[in-house]
């Protein structure tokens, strides 16, 4: 099937103006906002002030964008350690929204938004949709999960502000998704790419088409070019990658334009750097390293030099779409052992703490990830030890259920626990291979 391009000329949205700012203007804007953000963070957030003072760096010392390199990094554990409100730079009365994502030990990471923050979030989502060629006449089916996860409500508010018809269908119930897609003349869908593949397979099984669908906006997990080609070939839609993380704002940090050759970052709001993950050194454009983001306009929870753990590179070359905001290469892997399943970030250490909580000791375990018909499945194989081997089936089954329950409680997703014989799980020198990812991407 051929894909019809219908890009910017048909759908220029006023909100997209900053995407096209001349570089010099953009940089002046960034510097002003950066100075204001750093001052705000320094004055109102203990963690930032202490760290900057320890390095003898004050907000006044930021005179060029390059001076950002003098500031310390922020990492995920900083959010965990200050749970829940320690990084807030606004009083609670000004906070109008809270979201949460899973953290490393069962306590989630809490993020907050003022009214102005929500407006920024909505505007970058409008810009994301506009870059994909969507406009007010579109019918958007939002199958991202709604709730504490920033994906659902983020995409929703953006599509609504764009003026489109929004169907907040959230996740699950595949047959109903397909029915709605057909019957409401849906033109764009937002969901994880693996869920969309699942929809494609179900549609094939049921021998139904994709109606008026022309665009898919897929994110919350890494996905490859070959998956994109598969999706586009099967459905004739244009599949765009969207990037974001709740620590920064949610979805809407970056989006692929019609060129589908890298994601434009909305760098008037999120300033990017690429660093060497070992040394922390800032790398030049084009070099691959860890993406570090600094928010330029967030009030409730400004983030300074947040290490995303995502590996990519920055590209300032002009894009055929005309956007001047730089692109990052699509993100294929991470710099730590976190993996993503069904849109949820999981650290093996979370599984460990759940196992520990049930057993009191940590048995050998391995996480096996598979994909069946587009749906990710997570199985945790746990070796049976003499301590918890019981003579009774009932007791072992109850143990299995308890382990499943504990892991589900920590992660918030359904998992299967498989009891295996001792010494059957691979060991290696040093770190055992905790995660066996059998999903083909």
């Amino acid at each position, binding site marked *: 099937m051929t894909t019809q391009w219908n890009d910017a000329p048909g759908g220029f949205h006023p909100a997209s103006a900053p995407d096209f700012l001349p570089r010099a203007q953009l940089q002046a804007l960034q510097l002003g906002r950066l100075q204001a953000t750093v001052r705000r963070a320094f004055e109102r957030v203990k963690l930032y002030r202490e760290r900057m003072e320890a390095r003898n760096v004050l907000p006044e010392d930021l005179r060029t964008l390059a001076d950002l390199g003098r500031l310390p990094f922020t990492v995920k554990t900083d959010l965990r350690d200050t749970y829940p409100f320690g990084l807030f730079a606004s009083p609670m009365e000004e906070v109008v929204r809270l979201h949460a994502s899973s953290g490393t030990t069962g306590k989630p990471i809490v993020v907050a938004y003022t009214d102005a923050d929500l407006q920024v979030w909505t505007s970058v989502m409008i810009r994301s949709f506009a870059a994909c060629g969507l406009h007010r006449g579109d019918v958007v089916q939002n199958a991202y999960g709604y709730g504490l996860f920033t994906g659902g409500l983020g995409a929703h508010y953006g599509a609504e502000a764009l003026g489109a018809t929004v169907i907040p269908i959230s996740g699950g119930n595949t047959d109903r998704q397909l029915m709605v897609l057909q019957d409401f003349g849906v033109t764009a869908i937002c969901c994880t790419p693996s869920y969309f593949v699942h929809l494609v397979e179900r549609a094939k099984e049921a021998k139904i088409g994709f109606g008026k669908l022309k665009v898919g906006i897929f994110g919350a997990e890494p996905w490859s070019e070959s998956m994109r080609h598969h999706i586009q070939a099967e459905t004739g839609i244009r599949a765009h990658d969207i990037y974001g993380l709740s620590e920064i704002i949610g979805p809407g940090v970056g989006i692929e334009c019609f060129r589908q050759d890298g994601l434009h970052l909305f760098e008037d709001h999120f300033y990017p750097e690429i660093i060497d993950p070992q040394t922390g050194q800032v790398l030049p454009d084009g070099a691959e390293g860890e993406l570090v983001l600094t928010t330029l306009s967030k009030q409730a929870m400004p983030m300074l030099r947040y290490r995303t753990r995502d590996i990519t590179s920055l590209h300032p070359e002009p894009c055929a779409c005309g956007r001047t905001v730089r692109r990052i290469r699509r993100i294929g892997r991470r710099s730590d052992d976190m993996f993503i399943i069904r849109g949820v970030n999981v650290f093996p250490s979370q599984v460990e703490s759940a196992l520990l909580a049930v057993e009191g000791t940590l048995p050998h375990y391995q996480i096996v990830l598979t994909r069946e018909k587009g749906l990710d499945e997570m199985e945790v194989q746990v070796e049976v030890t*003499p301590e918890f081997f019981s*003579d009774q089936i009932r007791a072992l*089954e109850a143990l299995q259920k308890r382990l499943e329950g504990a892991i589900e409680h920590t992660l918030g997703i359904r998992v299967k626990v498989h*009891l295996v*014989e*001792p010494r059957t799980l691979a060991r290696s020198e040093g770190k055992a291979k905790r995660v066996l990812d059998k999903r083909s991407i």
Partner: protein
Amino acid sequence: MKIRQLSLFLENRPGQLRIPCKVLGDAGIDILTMSLADTQQFGILRLIVKDSERAKKALEAAGCVVNATDVLALDVPDRPGGLASTLEAFEKAGLGIEYMYAFAASRERGKFATLVFRLEDPDRAARLLGEHGVKLVSSKELFERAGV
């Protein structure tokens, strides 16, 4: 009157059952009777052998996870209704049965069959069953009958 039984955890994979049997065979240990209880995911193999301590060591050395439990053995009339009448005694004594299985070597075909029972409190069960006139079979007798 209690009999030592060993139980092993086995995954439901082809060939898993063979391993403990081979280990015991190599160690020259005779399996008097065994029973396999299973779920979709795993199974529990229950064995009665003459030298349970030696068997346990051998199996553990081979990497198996082994438990030792005390069970009771009873002679049950080898005729239709024989089991029911025995179970009536359990009921009268107020005893719940965790599980049971048949013993491979019976005393006399057509006369008696031997069954193994796991109960929550085997000592109390042994006493109560005795009071109800149920005859328990000792390990010594079991091994004699089996000719080991």
